[in-house]
């Protein structure tokens, strides 16, 4: 049963190796890409609580929250794998497309199974760096510009995470690298605060929490649809599993908890506010991701403050729904973009239900997700903020639906290929139905969902959101912001950095002239002599 874990992680890698070295496999693999995540799905279903140590510093283990997210990620990869051949057609038979697709998949599936710091860091970095290949797959100036921002933030985030892990490892007296031991030793370790700061920064850069979200909107709006689907669906959840695994929920840390919750809520509302100013539906979805990830961070924060042991599975459950909802909506956009107005209805109506589900439409998967995390938020200020964020999400989703309709194909009889529509329907079904199956094992009996109070708690934010949206759509002139709002501010920063590198290069050119280098050699000789004599 343990063998399923390495198989799930290494199967896509093996396919990558095969496709890299034999053109024969490469032709056939294009249509069979959806097979790659299957071992992951099987592992998620049957290998829960499995653990295996690979040679060297690597090791895999799977617990219930990990299994949920692994299964969800595998499913969305499967759906995207079905849509990809229809979307990219013959381009998918070339090495670059397959290699970046399979590498990102390896990283994004394995990150949920990482058992120790090194494996988690490897898989986290792999999904980030390989993601760059997916983002810039179809080329284009916008894609490469977004890719540069994405790559910078990915590498910076990875550096933060590495610092956090080193601080965690240094703080663990036993010196073991396994995640449970490290997290157990965290509250008492001397470098706890620094570790938590860098952890939040590292995972936040992946999840798109506000200061570090600038890469998400341009990247998702520039990336091709299947790439955007898997990146927003599965890849972002590497940050969520990070929170689930590394936050010490057993020890209540009110200070840190509230701080994280505050960042989370700021991201939630910021995402909606800027999302409303976007015209491109992909950008709107990107901001919806920022908002949802903010909400998850807020829930995690509150759970950390209260020291809630059940938080990991609740967070994972909420994220599971988000995988299907967000990944699915991107696939829906792919379908909408290629269908004429006449065939739009069978794609648009499920999109509306799933979109509103994100905001917590009663009886949908989203509602279950909201209910699962309601206890963690508690009834105080956080609870009301949670409901307000649901209302905000409603406005954003309605905005998304109006925007989504505009990108429908002009040719009336155009019909999206069945593969893309099929993939969307799979994701939609998973978003709506799968939470119902998993809810009992996460947050108690189904009955709770059907209580009048629960439905009312979910309904009033939706109504409030709807009314607010009507008011909003009446506004004649609405502000316009390019995707990646804060980027405008950062643009001059980028040019100044380039200026800095020019200056460094000029300085280096001057230093490497013979007289200067010779003088420096003499200076260093005297400097060392002085330093040592002074130390005496």
């Amino acid at each position, binding site marked *: 049963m343990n063998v399923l874990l390495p198989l799930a992680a290494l199967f896509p890698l093996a396919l990558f190796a095969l496709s*890299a070295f034999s053109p024969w496999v490469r032709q056939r693999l294009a249509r069979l890409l959806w097979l790659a995540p299957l071992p992951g799905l099987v592992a998620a279903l049957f290998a829960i609580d499995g653990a295996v140590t690979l*040679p*060297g*510093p*690597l090791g895999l283990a799977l617990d219930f929250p990990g299994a949920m997210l692994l299964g969800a990620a595998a499913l969305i990869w499967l759906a995207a794998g079905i849509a990809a051949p229809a979307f990219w057609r013959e*381009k998918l038979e*070339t*090495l*670059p*497309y397959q*290699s*970046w697709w399979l590498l990102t998949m390896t990283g994004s599936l394995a990150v949920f199974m990482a058992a120790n710091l*090194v*494996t988690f*860091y*490897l898989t986290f*970095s*792999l999904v980030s*760096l390989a993601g*760059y*290949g997916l983002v*810039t797959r179809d080329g284009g100036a916008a894609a490469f510009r977004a890719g540069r921002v994405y*790559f910078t933030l990915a*590498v*910076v985030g*990875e*550096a933060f995470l*590495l*610092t956090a892990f*080193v*601080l965690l*490892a*240094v703080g663990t007296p036993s*010196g073991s*690298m396994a995640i449970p031991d490290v997290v157990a030793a965290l509250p008492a370790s001397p*470098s706890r605060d620094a570790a938590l700061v860098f952890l939040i920064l590292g995972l936040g850069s992946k999840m798109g929490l506000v200061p570090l979200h600038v890469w998400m909107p341009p990247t998702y709006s520039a990336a091709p649809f299947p790439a955007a689907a898997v990146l927003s669906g599965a890849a972002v959840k590497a940050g969520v599993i990070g929170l689930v695994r590394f936050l010490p929920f057993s020890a209540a840390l009110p200070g840190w908890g509230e701080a994280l919750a505050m960042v989370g809520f700021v991201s939630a509302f910021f995402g909606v506010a800027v999302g409303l100013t976007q015209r491109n539906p992909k950008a709107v979805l990107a901001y919806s991701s920022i908002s949802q990830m903010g909400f998850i961070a807020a829930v995690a924060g509150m759970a950390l403050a209260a020291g809630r042991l059940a938080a990991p599975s609740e967070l994972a459950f909420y994220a599971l729904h988000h995988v299907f909802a967000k990944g699915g909506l991107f696939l829906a956009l792919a379908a909408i973009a290629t269908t004429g107005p006449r065939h739009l209805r069978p794609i648009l109506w499920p999109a509306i239900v799933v979109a509103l589900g994100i905001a917590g439409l009663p009886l949908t998967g989203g509602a279950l997700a909201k209910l699962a995390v309601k206890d963690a938020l508690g009834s105080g200020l956080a609870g009301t903020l949670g409901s307000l964020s649901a209302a905000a999400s409603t406005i954003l989703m309605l905005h998304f639906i109006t925007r989504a309709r505009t990108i429908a194909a002009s040719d009336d009889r155009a019909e999206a290929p069945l593969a893309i529509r099929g993939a969307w329907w799979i994701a939609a079904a998973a978003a709506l139905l799968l939470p119902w199956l998993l809810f009992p094992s996460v947050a108690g009996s189904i009955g709770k969902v059907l209580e009048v109070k629960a439905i009312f708690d979910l309904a009033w934010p939706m109504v409030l959101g709807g009314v607010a949206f009507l008011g909003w759509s009446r506004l004649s002139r609405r502000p316009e912001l390019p995707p990646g709002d804060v980027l405008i501010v950062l643009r001059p920063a980028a040019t100044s950095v380039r200026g800095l*590198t020019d200056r*460094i*290069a000029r300085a*280096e050119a001057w*230093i*490497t*002239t*013979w007289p200067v*280098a*010779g003088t*420096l*050699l*003499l200076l*260093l*000789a005297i*400097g*060392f*002599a002085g*330093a*040592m*004599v*002074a*130390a*005496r």
Partner: protein
Amino acid sequence: MTPGLMATTPGGLLLVLAVVVPVIGILALWLVRWRAIEWVAIATLAINLVVSLATLQAVRASDASLVYLVGGWMPPLGLALRADGIAAVMMVMTGAIVAVTALYARGQFGFDPHGPERRRPMVFWTMLLAITGALNLIFVGEDLFNLYVALELLTFAAVPLVSLDGSRDTLAAALRYLVFALAGSVLYLLGVAVVYGAYGTLDLVVLAEMRGADGALLLAIALMTAGLIAKTALFPLHLWLPPAHAGAPAAASAILSALVVKGSFFLILGLWFDLLPPGLGAIGANGLGMLGAGAVIVGSVLALRQERLKLLVAYSTVAQIGYLFLVFPLATGSEAASPFASLAWTGGVLQLLAHAFAKAAMFMAAGLVYEAIGHDRIAGFKGLGRIAPITVLTMTLASVSLMGLPPSGGFSAKWLMLSAALGEGAWWWAVVILAGGLLAAGYVFRILVPAFSTPEAPAERKYPVAPVRECAALVLAVIAILIGFLPLAPWPLLAIGRIAQVSP
């Protein structure tokens, strides 16, 4: 000076073989028929690898360093050879990389067994053996003047490799390298003179026992350090490295970048951790650390800006050498029992090893790319993945180690040094290491992304390349990755027999 301490140990003869075998190889190379020169060279290097592996085994078995009194004379009068744990590891590294480079370079440089004798193969194989012998002597030498002669042997063997193709630019680069290295070795010789003037001996063990701490020793160590960092091309003094290493042919630049610069670095380690009394090194070590930090930042920024692959990899060497010098502040600052048991010491050695293998693989891959598409301008790398998949795989694996992604040697080194830095609270070194990692990811991706991207016009391979040469480069890259599978903790092997520990 306790006589017991200085007696030839059973495995001692291996040290003599390590030095003499390459020399015999050189002599044989010039006397045998032209057809057989490659076989003589490869046979010599194979024997050398076996000798270094035997040395490592002997050191591990006896858990003490091997000693050999040359000519039977006891230092300070005579010369002794000593191989401690770290020297044995360095010898195996050198032996392995040189052997694989020999396989990579077989049949190259226009070597036609049935044709007339040609200049380039004769020079390449002679200098390759000379570099191996010189490096082995640097790792096992114990007398400061003996090490000076070894350093000169190393420089005289490296310079002709730089100007092997005889073009004007490589000649200028070789000349600049030679004269700057000479300036460095003269400073080193000054230090040797001052040491002998103050203590009457040049043997490191005898000197370490004297526990001298007066001005003369400090002046000597300062001069020697300055000379050696000139030969190691540490940041402000790296003017000669990029043109030299980029101009040399691929096999040669692999050896130059991976091994030659490490020889003089190994001596600085010996000076600072064995000869210098513990308390006095603090300020100087931080100075070296700052230079290393400068190297990491400037080297990486320059590498990011290069248009040609070999220059990019050469500047990457400048940056990765910077990491090595972070060992000084971290090891002297650590509270571990001795600096050799500290995380930073093992981290430094791992960085040295991982960089050697990864850089050798990268330069060989650069050579293969040049042969495959006729140029090494990075802009024109589109579609390389399809033409030379094994070469691109080699570059990817080597890049993983250079970037410091697990499970590679580069990552283990980065992890251990970060742990040392953050453990000691010296967060600024940690910032440097991380910044270096970011920039390394930057310049590495600059190579890999075009290699993996689809070209406009379907690119095709210009010249066929023997698969054994691609596999040779791949083997080195895989070793760089495999080093990452070693445990992430200080290696006891590296602390065996250090002179500072042996003498109470």
